[in-house]
């Protein structure tokens, strides 16, 4: 009975993981759409104020250049996560640790979904009013570094939960989250160093 339930749970984990990843990227896409709409309105209003008729004609339409890059990046990230997850599942099957790795992927994605949903109410409106200056890029890098630190602490929390409940899938999820946090932190550090060279320090 227990083994049958375990096997069923192991089979369900990849499908649940797929569902969660699709929901998370749908939320991110909806945020991006909202942001593009707000930016479009903001751009048109600024053009009206500045008396530029050429720009004012773009009223109501989102500026395409910056956002098409963001859409491409989002799509690329989605495919990358799908590919990495599929590879992890295959590796788990090969090494006979399939339920642990699939469960780890699921809990990792659930943590990311929780953070995305928590931040979804604030982000578009606040980023929409920020100017697109070099300082903005540094701000994004700073927030990314800060988010990576939060992921690292959540990985610690998951590891402690795994210890308390004696669960290998949660421990695998903590490892995935820790690895992701290290990757984000490295990328953010590089971006910060690059932006720091562009901006002179204040006295």
């Amino acid at each position, binding site marked *: 009975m*227990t083994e049958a*339930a*375990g096997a069923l*749970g*192991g089979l369900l984990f990849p499908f649940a993981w797929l569902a969660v990843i699709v929901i998370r990227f749908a939320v*991110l896409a909806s945020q991006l759409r909202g942001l593009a709409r707000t930016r479009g309105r903001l751009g048109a209003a600024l053009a009206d104020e500045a008396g530029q008729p050429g720009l004012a004609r773009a009223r109501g339409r989102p500026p395409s250049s910056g956002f098409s890059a963001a859409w491409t*990046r*989002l799509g690329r*990230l989605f495919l990358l996560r799908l590919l990495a997850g599929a590879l992890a599942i295959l590796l788990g099957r090969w090494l006979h640790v399939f*339920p*642990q790795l699939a469960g780890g992927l*699921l*809990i990792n994605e*659930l*943590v990311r979904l*929780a*953070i995305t949903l*928590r*931040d979804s109410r*604030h*982000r578009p409106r*606040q*980023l929409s009013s920020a100017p697109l200056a070099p*300082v903005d890029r*540094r*701000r*994004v890098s*700073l*927030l*990314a*570094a*800060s*988010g*990576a*630190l*939060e992921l*690292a*602490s*959540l990985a*610690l*929390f*998951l590891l*402690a*939960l*795994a*210890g*308390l*409940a*004696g*669960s*290998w*899938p*949660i421990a695998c999820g903590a490892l995935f989250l820790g690895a992701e946090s290290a990757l*984000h932190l490295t990328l*953010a550090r590089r971006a*910060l160093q690059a932006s*720091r060279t562009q*901006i002179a*320090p*204040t006295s």
Partner: protein
Amino acid sequence: MPLPSQLSVLERDAAGARALLPALWVALVALNLGLQRAGELTARAGAAGEAEACEPRPRTRHRWHGSPLRRALTCSLGLGLPALAAAAALAERGPYLLLAGGVVVYELATATLRLSLLLQLRLFAALRRRTTAPRFAPVAGAISIGGQLWGRRLLTLSFITLCGLGMTGSPTLLGGSLLLAAAGGWALAPWRRHGPAMGQAEPPTAPATHHD
């Protein structure tokens, strides 16, 4: 895959849980107080007054006076001591783990939150010293345990614990998830009642999380 019948050594060994969980709780309360103090000092050193200014508490009928450190201590003791006393009075393993394990998970979650906020504060403060880095008021505001960001983060941690419960069926995680949800709801309650009407419920910039 671990199932309810295959719980951890701690949960199977009732005597071990009885001895270990209260000791773990005391250690975590001490860790929490240390992290809270360090966070307050960092926020004060980085930007005087920002921690209080960015998240003004709305007026409530039951105002809770005192420093954030005292509030943190009152919260930990007020929640933990009755739960541990009730757990000690119960002979059965399940309710004991639900209560004693629950407060341990709660302390663990709040320690994680404080550690995360402390690290973020230090990052922002270090960069601000060198250049014109953005204000870190939102993170500083979350240090206050009655704050809106604090409540939302607690609810996130409750959701994560609930996911762990779904995977393991552990009574410890059930207790922790319930306590975290209750604490998060309690922290958000004044904001739900008064925040939007006052027009100051939201911090000036986004919470410090931005990655894909």
